[in-house]
């Protein structure tokens, strides 16, 4: 079983604590002039996304987590699982609801997502920062209305609800920032 010593701590390091996988967000080394040193870390639970504070005594060991982040193509959902594929090996992985919960509305077939695998099973999915999605539902556009900041609700092909400027029409493809859910621009014709 691989372990990490506190002297190997750095952001991004992944380990197991109380049965859950964690990643280090921030690491601070503290030491009185003489005496015991500590590593004060902020760590993110990779299952729940919660960030907590933890203090380790220098020299403490933690169990390394077999966590990998791999680019995968989203294929389809079958009602129970969401299926992803590694584009080079064609190996497929089925993600359960818990893993895709936060990104359900951004899943589009053939797009590439970062899938975090823990012991070879999908733990979480991160969408690309920007995606181009087709508007499937919105009120008709108001020609000539270019008032700054005026928006209307719209639904995109993946099911997400966003706000778009008044001039955007149903059927158009728009560019969206998945981190904020904000409309950025009309997508360039491909």
């Amino acid at each position, binding site marked *: 079983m691989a372990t990490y010593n506190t*002297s190997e701590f750095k952001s991004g390091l992944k380990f197991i604590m109380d049965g859950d996988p964690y990643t280090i967000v921030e*690491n*601070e*080394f*503290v*030491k*009185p*002039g*003489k*005496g*015991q*040193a*500590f590593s*004060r870390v902020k760590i993110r639970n990779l299952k729940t996304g919660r960030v*907590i*504070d*933890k*203090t380790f*005594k*220098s*020299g403490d060991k933690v169990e390394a987590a077999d966590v990998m982040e791999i680019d995968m193509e989203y294929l389809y959902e079958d009602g129970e699982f969401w299926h992803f594929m590694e584009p080079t090996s064609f190996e497929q992985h089925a993600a359960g609801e818990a893993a895709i919960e936060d990104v359900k509305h951004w899943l589009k077939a053939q797009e590439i997502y970062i899938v975090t695998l823990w012991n070879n099973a999908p733990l979480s999915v991160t969408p690309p920062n920007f995606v181009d999605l087709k508007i499937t539902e919105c009120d008709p556009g108001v020609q000539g209305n270019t008032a700054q900041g005026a928006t209307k609700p719209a639904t995109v092909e993946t099911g997400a609800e966003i706000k778009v400027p008044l001039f955007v029409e149903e059927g158009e493809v728009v560019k969206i920032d998945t981190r904020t859910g904000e409309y950025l621009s009309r997508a360039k014709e491909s």
Partner: protein
Amino acid sequence: MNWQPTTNQETRQLRAQMNHDIRTFFHQRHVLEVETPALSQAGNTDPFIQSFQLLNSIATNNTSRFLHTSPEYPMKRLLAAGSGDIYQICKVWREGEAGRNHNPEFTLLEWYRVDYSVQKLMQEVSDLLHALLPSLEKKDKKFTYEQLFLEKFDLNPHIAKHADIVKCTNTSIPSLETVDLDRQALLDALLTHCIEPDFESDCLTFVYDYPASQSALAKIRERKDKSSVAMRFEVYLGQSELGNGYQEETCYQRNKDILQSENIQRQKLNLENVKQDENFLAAAKSGIPESAGVAIGLDRVLMALSGINTIQKVINFPWDVA
């Protein structure tokens, strides 16, 4: 390759000026600049300081050598040989100490004053730091270790029961597992996590009279209430610990006992035994004069001088790019 230094020219000029000012300060006070070896046959036995070791080199005749973690032992040999007041500016190495305020290789200013009391040395540390950092206008703060714990936790660190210190730590630092921490580690955790952050940011804070168990090579003094304290101080600028000073232990037997007990503690902590410095002990046997000594981390002083808050930006080529 990212070959460029992490400092800017202004920081490099500030370092040169700081070194110049330190040398002027000690020249005026008739303290002699000295040099001692960086790579020695013996290492630091302190269980909380790890030396880098050079192993099995032909040049060292298949024995290991240790990079010094401070020039303390050989400087005390000079004192025993009649050097009088001495100072040294040198690079030292401490394995595993890396972070925003730590670089495993760093620059130390260490000096010793013969016939000085630790109080008198604290005053000199203050004089030097005020000379280097003219922007420090506020009066220094001074607290005993006990005072800090009483004020913050209503806990007397010298006589409190172990269970009460554990309880205090669990309440104050819920993120820390206290099960396998001994008394010293618990107090260290409380000091670093809860007390240091309260130090005023724009003045010097001196902390003195440490628990006798944390004496290292400092003298121990018995107080009126029969409890003992180590005649040791730490100086902070804001929350940044700059240095550590002692009323130096001059008794040969106690110096010897400390080095041995440190190696016993190493064993308990599952750390490698470190070859103790017999030359230092021989000097102690012949007689180290009554003296007070202190070591100051100059990279941290430079951080204060330049207003830069990561040590890697005041060192030309820090650990990861050295």
